[in-house]
């Protein structure tokens, strides 16, 4: 009778059985069938993948620098107003050797991380609360989006009145800028959890917190990650606006440097600061993209290093010509499939038996 001792304790993983009728080693036969089912994938060498991922970026950058240089050569503005990329880059390079640069960068990054961390905590708490409560949703749901669309710079007059020219004023605006995006990411993520997966969780006995832990949170992750990424963008923008406006005496920062250079009519210095801001943006974006890519690979949303949509488009033409499975071309920066033959039905014949052992 059904007892708590349960089922799986009674399972015996029998390794080889002989089918009573055919005398075939059925497990071997099944293993053969299954081997056909699993695509074996060979990864391209790391160097090749890294190159495939970087050359388009390098190309785009080179093109941009070239255009810049062409504008400078055209003589549209005198070079003390618009210097060429060579000057700006060499100024940036020489700054890398100064303590002041690293002090300023460190302060800016600490401000960014503090503000961002606080925004993430607030955003997640508010997001979860709103997604769970109908009252809260009607109460503050649309305010969150309204808040998100407010340019952060309009908060500064209030922030300065409240907190004076202090770190708190900057933090206040950074958090207000970033938290709504994070909250919205959480809300949308929870709203779009497939009901089937919630049923799966509930059928396995997950309720309340455990349902969130095992189903809702991981299912909402893509949207949450998008919210985090957008939140970072808002955080970084708000911070830069803040550092231009709120210059705390004795606290060097990237924004303060930028403002200083402007006041000294030092265009090269302005550009060097902007390069710093740009580089930080690119690095953080790359980190988010790596996390996003990993997640999509794990969930099978990426086919051979490209999006599933692209892969499906690329596969169609060949699939029709060749019949059966569609080998996705070795495009993109991912992996090259090593496709087993035999696309179709009728794989159950004995010919495959013992194919893998």
């Amino acid at each position, binding site marked *: 009778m*059904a007892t708590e001792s349960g089922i*799986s304790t009674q*399972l015996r*993983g029998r390794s080889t059985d002989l089918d009573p009728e055919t005398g075939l080693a059925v497990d071997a036969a*099944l293993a053969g069938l299954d081997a056909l089912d699993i695509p074996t994938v060979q990864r391209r060498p790391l160097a090749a993948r890294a190159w495939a991922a970087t050359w388009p970026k390098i190309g785009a950058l080179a093109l941009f620098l070239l255009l810049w240089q062409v504008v400078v050569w055209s003589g549209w503005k005198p070079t003390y107003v618009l210097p060429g990329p060579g000057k700006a880059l060499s100024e940036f390079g020489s700054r890398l050797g100064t303590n002041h640069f690293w002090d300023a960068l460190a302060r800016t990054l600490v401000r960014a991380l503090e503000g961002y961390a606080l925004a993430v905590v607030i955003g997640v708490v508010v997001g979860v609360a709103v997604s769970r409560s109908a009252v809260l949703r009607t109460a503050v749901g649309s305010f969150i989006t309204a808040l998100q669309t407010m340019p952060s710079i309009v908060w500064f007059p209030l922030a300065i009145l409240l907190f004076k020219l202090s770190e708190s004023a900057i933090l206040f605006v950074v958090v207000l800028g970033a938290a709504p995006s994070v909250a919205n990411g959480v809300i949308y993520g929870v709203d779009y959890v497939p009901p089937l*997966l919630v*049923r*799966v969780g509930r059928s396995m006995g997950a309720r309340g917190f455990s349902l969130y832990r095992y189903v809702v949170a991981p299912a909402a992750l893509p949207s949450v990650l998008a919210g985090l990424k957008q939140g970072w963008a808002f955080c970084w923008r708000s911070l830069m606006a803040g550092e231009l406006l709120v210059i705390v005496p004795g606290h060097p920062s990237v924004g303060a440097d930028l403002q200083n250079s402007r006041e000294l009519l030092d265009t090269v210095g302005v550009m060097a600061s902007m390069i710093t801001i740009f580089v930080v943006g690119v690095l953080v974006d790359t980190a988010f993209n790596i996390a996003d890519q990993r997640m999509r690979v794990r969930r099978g949303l990426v086919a051979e290093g490209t999006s599933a949509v692209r892969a499906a488009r690329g596969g169609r033409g060949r699939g029709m010509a060749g019949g059966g499975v569609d080998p996705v071309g070795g495009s993109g920066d991912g992996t090259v499939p090593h496709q087993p033959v035999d696309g179709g039905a009728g794989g159950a014949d004995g010919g495959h038996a013992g194919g893998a052992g």
Partner: protein
Amino acid sequence: MTAVRSDTAVRIDGVSRFFGAGAARVQALDNVSLDVRSGEFLCLLGASGCGKSTLLGLIAGLDAPSAGTVDTTGRRAGMMFQDSALLPWLTAGGNIEVPLRLRGIRRGERRERVERLLAMVRLAGLADKRPHELSGGMRQRVSLARAFAQEADILCMDEPFGALDAMTRDLLHDELERIWRETGVTVIFVTHDVREAVRLGDRIVLLSSRPGRVAEIFDVDIERPRRIDSARVAELATTVTTRLREEVGRHGH
């Protein structure tokens, strides 16, 4: 825990289920009454859209009836879904582990059980594969292993073997029958396949379509072990199929 169990595992009494409202209102089930005996292997048979999945959802407590009552007499119902419904962010092994984690089983033991369950569904060694790396039939087998891992008293299975080749399916029939016999779990098994129902069931409940009603209940008096291609199975399957055709035909499908 040691309380005496009633002989009836599930009491379904006058259950109706409507979906939607107004003109778009659909009646999936109409006044279904059915007792599932404890330890019974019950097969639910019926045309597509007749309300089989809806009924299973009600039994598993995932959904509430519009009218009537479903009583699982204090027993816990587990579910294997029609689509394999694996959690796409977990590996095959990770999926099977979830119900074990939810029941608070220790890590070492979990790993051991996952291995055993995977071996049972003939997927030993594939614990680290992601659902999208598996074929449809393999995903269904992972889903089957996950259903067993729940160790529920009542196991609801929604067309569990639909995507399998005949050979794998026959093996899993044997395996399912063995586990059912050894554990005494009550199985409610939905299928489109009449022979499969005759191969496995103690009783076969035939549902009519639109709305779903109990059209007829067949007792399967064929001694086990049965073979799906045996003459007696084929004979009863023919009778049931004839009756099923009548039901389907009556609703103009």
